[in-house]
């Protein structure tokens, strides 16, 4: 979000709407950076430089970007194993993210956590959780702390459509509503749990929104592929939470272009489905939007080039990074820094 473009050149074509050009460029930049990073992660798989698993957000960038731009410093993100995008969206470095996927010393947790547990407290990313639903109650706790201490930050919790069918979802939503907590629950409905269509295993059409009423909450379903729409919704929900208006549950309709995880070729999709969604690629949509709003092609290209450059640099840094030293195995089990469970 550093290099502000020269907006003057675009003249009157720039509408000074509620989003505004600066945030629009930030939204675009974030989406491009996330996409480039995720594509790089995919390449690194193929080169066998990423071990374990990994879950890409290609196609879902608008959600992470929309919330990332709307959130303020101090706001806290609680993510899932599909959390690369959300971690980057709060400002964590590409090498921290990719380095963790590569399980190198340069990674956000020096390879100790791995791709499913990205954490960057300095950027407000309070962990990524890999047991479905677990982080919804945890986000409630963070919000409770803010409420109790009178701190004005909001806790934002991202999860998928499949997550709405596990018990912790229900407990967290009711708890947050009863305690009127400053937390925003963001369901990224990408139509699938792992390989099973969400409709096959869910009693309602909109797995999150159609359940909002169970917790006395407003029904909110939005186009999750339009970063402006996400941004506006995010801003409203965050503001409501900050002003003691309690929690929100936002369902963002989106789609992942790749498989669930590294191992998944996504053969279970009906023919044509991906193609339809590719037409609604959030980055294509947003690139066009910028053009409509009069942003020059050069400006756009500069952002794209800068993103690619950053990814290259990050990749190089990661490849150059060693593994963490063996001693790390035994650190930070307990707060004294060590692992001793006995004297």
């Amino acid at each position, binding site marked *: 979000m550093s290099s502000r473009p020269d907006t003057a050149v675009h003249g009157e074509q720039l509408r000074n709407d509620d989003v505004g050009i600066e945030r629009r460029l930030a939204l675009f930049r974030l989406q491009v950076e996330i996409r480039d990073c995720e594509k790089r992660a995919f390449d690194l798989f193929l080169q066998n430089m990423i071990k374990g698993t990994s879950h890409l957000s290609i196609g879902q960038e608008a959600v992470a970007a929309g919330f990332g731009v709307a959130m303020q410093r101090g706001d*806290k993100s*609680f993510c899932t194993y599909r959390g690369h995008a959300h971690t980057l969206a709060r400002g964590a470095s590409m090498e921290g993210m990719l380095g963790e996927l590569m399980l190198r010393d340069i990674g*956000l*947790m*020096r390879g*100790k*956590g791995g791709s499913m*547990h990205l*954490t*960057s*407290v300095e950027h407000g990313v*309070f*962990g990524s*959780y890999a*047991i479905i639903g*677990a*982080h*919804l*109650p*945890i*986000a*409630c*706790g*963070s*919000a*409770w*702390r*803010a409420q*109790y*201490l009178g701190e004005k930050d909001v*806790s934002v919790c991202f999860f998928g459509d499949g997550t709405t069918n596990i*018990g*912790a979802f229900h*407990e*967290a939503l*009711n*708890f947050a509503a*009863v*305690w009127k907590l400053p937390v925003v629950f963001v369901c990224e409905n990408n139509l699938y749990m792992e390989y099973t269509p969400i409709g096959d295993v869910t009693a309602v059409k909109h797995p999150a929104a159609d359940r909002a009423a169970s917790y006395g909450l407003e029904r909110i379903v939005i186009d999750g592929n339009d970063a402006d729409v996400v941004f506006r919704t995010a801003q409203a929900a965050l503001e409501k939470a900050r002003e003691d208006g309690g929690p929100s549950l936002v369902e963002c309709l989106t789609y992942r272009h790749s498989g669930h995880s590294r191992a998944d070729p996504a053969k279970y999709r009906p023919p044509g489905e991906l193609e339809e969604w590719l037409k609604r690629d959030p980055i294509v949509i947003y690139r066009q939007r910028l053009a409509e709003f009069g942003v020059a092609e050069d400006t756009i290209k500069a952002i794209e080039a800068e993103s690619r450059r950053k990814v290259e640099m990050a990749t190089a840094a990661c490849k150059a990074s060693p593994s963490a030293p063996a001693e*790390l195995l035994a*650190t*930070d*089990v*307990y*707060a004294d*820094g060590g*692992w*001793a*469970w*006995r*004297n």
Partner: protein
Amino acid sequence: MGVAELTYRDAVVRAIAQEMERDERVVFLGEDVAKAGGVFKATVGLYEKFGPLRVRDTPISEQAILGAAMGAAMTGLRPIAEIMFADFLAVCFDYVANEISKLRYMSNGQLSCPLVIRTGNGGGVRFGAQHSQSVENWTMMIPGIKVVAPSSPVDLIGLMAAAVRDPDPVIFHEHKALYAMKGEVPDGEIVDTLGTARILRAGSDCTIAALALMVPRTLEAAEVLARDHGIDVEVIDVRSLVPLDTQTILGSVAKTGRLFTVEENPRLCGWGAEIASIVADEAFWDLDGPIVRITTPHIPLPAADHLEDLAIPSAERIVDKVRRVLNG
């Protein structure tokens, strides 16, 4: 400084109050704990004293309780969460086993989780199989948490204070059958140390390691063994399963040459097995004979009084076993 006689139940209130007075960040949540003072009446008065923002009733949502405690702890509070019966740890076990305990490690030390989960553990109250279990081992086996189980009012206060002040998550097993037990407690602030066992009775013939309700029963058995059978027992109250004070146990076994453990948890993979395996490895050459575990058999607990009494180790059973093992 004076001394008062307090029940184990009253000790809970006193311990929590002591810590809440000391530190504004200490908050307390659970089912029916606030306005009603808890189903065991162990938290009566806290709501009145500290108000509705610090002492909070929750829905029947154990996952939300522990999840919320965790989220609050990792962002700056010092929550105490009640899980009414220890058996219910099973409905929120993900937080114990996968979340709270692993947070610091997975985040490479970026996040801490200083919280206390207090829970009514153990049997003897005819509540049947789903409300009477001794589940110390469910928690001891999980890396990244600490586990404590006091056997007296004064230990309860001191260990609770230590647990609340500890930067790591602590599971605090209160024994339901001890709530009515009385003990002397000095006035003023009480703070103990986690990870310390205590030798409650010195002896030379054998060591018995016990925990919680098994401690008074073992002490009673030790008196009978001394009086009627000429067996001089050293009784260790283990108190803290993690960290485990192995030095006190190993030191005692070095002296007596024999080890018994008395466990309320059902047999398989109990804490006694862990201690036995440590001793069988590190103090093997000190041993004069087999290590013997006295446990609740590996069964669910029956509700009926006479059956439950048969299941959980009694002073008589301890006497009988130790006598037969040592005197052949």
